[in-house]
């Protein structure tokens, strides 16, 4: 096997442990990810007892060769984008650990758990107040957005 870059080595390790011990309701498409370590698809189920019970979502992770120093680009993709005050209808997520509060000790697994807990603590299904404006004007890459983080009441 060819020598792996540090970011590939780390992604490979994360992939192995995520496939072996996935958190409840989270499944990684291992075959696709091992084909291309820089693009992962993660399936997520709404947690029973929350507003998203029974719903299925798809997350996409994109990594640069600076991972884990550089945060992954994480968006919801597919036909079912969760209706949540921090999730735009184009799939972009307003979550501080994905930009300003990213740390190389975080992982795909901890990002997934944060998103699960963000969805689970939601009290009312609605889009962010600036959704239509944001979706029209934003960059394709959510990391280019200078997020102004919503308050944490949700």
């Amino acid at each position, binding site marked *: 096997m060819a020598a792996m870059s540090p970011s590939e080595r780390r992604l490979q390790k994360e992939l192995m442990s995520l496939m072996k*011990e996935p958190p409840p309701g989270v499944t990684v498409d291992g075959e696709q990810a091992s084909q291309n370590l820089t693009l992962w698809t993660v399936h997520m189920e709404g947690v029973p007892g929350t507003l998203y019970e029974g719903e299925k979502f798809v997350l996409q992770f994109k990594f640069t060769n600076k991972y884990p120093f550089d945060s992954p680009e994480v968006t919801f993709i597919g036909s079912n984008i969760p209706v949540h005050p921090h999730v735009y209808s184009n799939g972009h997520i307003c979550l501080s650990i994905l930009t300003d509060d990213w740390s190389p000790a*975080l992982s795909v697994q901890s990002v997934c*758990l*944060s998103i699960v807990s963000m969805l689970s603590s939601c009290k009312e299904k609605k889009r962010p107040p600036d959704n239509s404006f944001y979706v029209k004007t934003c960059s394709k890459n959510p990391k280019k957005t200078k997020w102004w983080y919503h308050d944490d009441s949700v």
Partner: protein
Amino acid sequence: MAETSEAQASASGQAGASGQAGSGSGSEDEKRDERMLECNICLDTARDAVVSMCGHLFCWPCLHQWLETRPSRQVCPVCKAAISRDKVIPLYGRGNTKQEDPRNKVPPRPAGQRTEPENNSGFPGFGFGDGFHMSFGIGAFPFGVFTSTFNFGDPRPSAAPRGTAQYEEEQFLSKIFLWVAILFVLWLIFA
């Protein structure tokens, strides 16, 4: 920002999960022991290991790269405590014969190379603490204006021969303009 605490909660959740997985047979226990010596950044066994004041273990090259990534906000990747080059302790196992400080292996970063893009607030050189740029920038401005007005529409070659009356006159005029410019700058600064 509840997100931060969520992240920490999930990070500890992850630690809990790996802890549970480690219980059982002897080889599983060994695996867990190995995990305890893993770098928190590359997830490999830490090489050139250093430990932070908050007790978190890293390879020095990994931690160094992280400190370089955000030089203005150096925090522990695991717990967000303040961290810096001088506040980590190198770890020497029995295998290390030379006991060289790993921090000396990675060259110190070049001076003055990094500035945070967020700090550019639109008008560089006009803020406080930028006094040099300010006086220089504005000071040069009237010079340019005056000299070009002075030479504008003037058909003769610019520099008159030294010693002639014309040369004297030009020297005199340029001195006047110099003083006008200095006064203008002083007025800008003190007005």
